């Protein structure tokens, strides 16, 4: 992807999320607190770092986007109010927008659910894909 495109995407992510990643002091409390850490390829603190450094391309394709439960624990506990979850959410939105209108339909959801998927995930799935 072109530098310029990435720059545009970065701006979009920042404006959508309203997050200023420069406030991050790299304490890692977000990742220390994240309940779905092990299910993630890129972890909350990495999201912040990668967006800040403009290394956004891998984020657009990573599954981590959908393993974030939007439980907002990282937002709650971040000492510097960086609010990583909002960033993840924003990246997600960017991807969704690029993908266009084919959103997840409610009737398809049951098929996708496996037994040990937490209820919370389903709920937040709707929260995400109904955007």
């Amino acid at each position: 992807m072109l530098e310029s495109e990435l720059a545009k995407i970065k701006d979009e992510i920042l404006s959508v999320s309203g997050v200023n990643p420069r406030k991050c002091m790299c304490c890692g409390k977000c990742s220390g607190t994240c309940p779905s850490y092990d299910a993630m390829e890129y972890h909350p603190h990495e999201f912040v770092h990668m967006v800040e450094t403009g290394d956004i391309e891998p984020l657009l394709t990573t599954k981590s986007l959908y393993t974030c439960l939007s439980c907002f624990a990282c937002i709650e506990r971040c000492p510097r109010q960086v609010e990583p979850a909002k960033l993840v959410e924003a990246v997600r939105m960017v991807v969704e927008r690029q993908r266009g209108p084919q959103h997840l339909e409610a009737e398809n959801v049951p098929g996708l659910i496996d037994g040990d998927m937490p209820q919370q995930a389903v709920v937040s799935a709707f929260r995400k894909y109904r955007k």
Partner: protein
Amino acid sequence: MQRIGVFVCHCGTNIAGTVDVKAVAEALGKENGVVYSTDYTYMCSASGQQLISEAIKEKNLTGVVVCSCSPRMHENTFRKCAERSGINPYMLEIANIREQDSWICKDMPTATAKAVALGKAAVAKVTLNAPLTAGETPVTKRALVIGGGIAGIQTALDIAEAGFPVDIVETKPTIGGKMAQLDKTFPTLDCAACILTPRMVECGQHENIRILSYSEVTQVKGFVGNFTVTIKRKARYVDETKCTGCGECTEKCPQKKVPNEFNMNLDNRHAIYIPFAQAVPKVATIDPDYCMKLKDGKCGVCSIVCQAKAIDYTAKDTFIEEKYGAVVVATGYNPIDLSKYNEFAYAESRDVVSSLEFERLMNAAGPTGGTLLRPSDGKHPKTIVFVQCVGSRCSADAEKGHEYCSKICCMYTAKHAILTRDHYPDTECYVFYIDVRTPGKNFDEFYRRAVEQYGVHYIKGMVGKVTPQADGTLDVQGSDLIMDKQVHIKADMVVLAASIEADKTARPLATMLTASMDTNDFFTEAHPKLRPVESPTAGVYLSGCCQGPKDIPDTVAQASAAASKVIGLLVKDKLKNNPCVAESNEDMCNGCSQCENVCPYGAITYIQKDFRGPNRTTVTRRVAQVNPAVCQGCGACTVTCPSGAMDLKGFTNKEIMAEVDAICR
């Protein structure tokens, strides 16, 4: 009519290079009231000053204008010279024709014209100037130290040693402060009590030091050299003069269920108590919230067992008023309240403790007699997790915690880890850190020892959650940023390095002292670099953590620095005031209080004053009065006064307007 002399300086070529000094001297010579005008290569030189002083005498001048460098440079030089030559120093004005003319302008005619204009302005001002004499105020040769921690103790001792009487006001029943609660000190690991208590005893025995323990400052009046302070001596129900500190009463007191604040409430004390063995003064105090005698009249055991007959249940709070020349603030710090941090389960589990609590658990005089046992079940902890920066370095908009770094946590955490590993090699220590900050003599070496010699596990990352487990252990979930993985540690204890914050009493005290504070309730310095131990309010000095987080060496250093400043003030018999202060013309004053409201120093007060009215009547009017010793001469009041009754000596309305006119001519 004034007889003004004008002296134009060449400053070598600095001025003469771009200003036609002869022309300037000539032009100004024609000004009204100017009887003598000349130029010279270096006015500030001995011979230059000689020239001025001779002219003053020969031409019996009443005012002098020196056209030279900035008044910030040589105003004092020339004013002294004028004084020596027999005219009032404030009858001399300087026209700044170097920094603000010859150095900013290359073209000679232009620069010369400006020099003349500036000269005319100065002449115009001198014409209206009046002689000013600095008032003097006597200095009360006694110092007040507010706070009896190591900072207060050190300051008091230094001042007392210099021969001045000092009072220490301490809210607790004993001096000693936080340091008395500590176990060892970093990086030398010598025992805090062993080095502190001798100083406390010294304070208690020093003939120049009076300790007002269990007392509070309730009112401060006055100003530098002349503070009048009201001190509340809380009723301790024990006569200090009689009590021998034998401790008999504290043994016998039936009320044993009082949380012991000295041990961070980890154990209990009696209702009548002496905080700790080496307390100074070593006098018992009755806790009115728990004493059964005071609450419902029953009991009275202590008065029975007391041989010295020191117990007095009828005691009341008393107020004493004292005069002081200087006030030193040493109100210290406190760890923040951790109960807000649910993620660390501080409120949930007794095994999650603050560092200060941990100090007590390690301390030989502590609740566990110095053997490290965890509060919940008194077992030896096998794994301890230390969490740094709890409530420090938070963003300004975060509602819990502070924005600043608490400075001491990195070091005392390393200390705790080392001591633990040293006493109990079988106990694993993990430290979650964001950065390890060790600027200080032998500090980083100390931290490295923790890692290399004592095998403390430092993990770059932060703890996200602490969950108490059924088996009594704590599941500590955190991130290891270097391994880029989330770690879970099964810990027996968690120690939180709580951020430290200014003592709650600091803010009201600052208001009483009209001393300024930053948003974190730390006192601000007169100058962050050059006057770090003085408050902007004259006569108020800062010692220790009331000015910002500090470790013991820094605190003691600042304490002594503050003391030396105080001594420097107290050796003076009188203080010279700045003569350029506001002055209210009582005939014109409306008594409307506007000036009083804008004065940053509370220098303006109002009195009811009798005036002679027409046909033998008396008119009593409300008029403003300026205390010249308190006024700093900013002039805020002069502008807010509609009638022009309030004016500023040395910068009067007329003087400034005369300058304006001269410049615009």
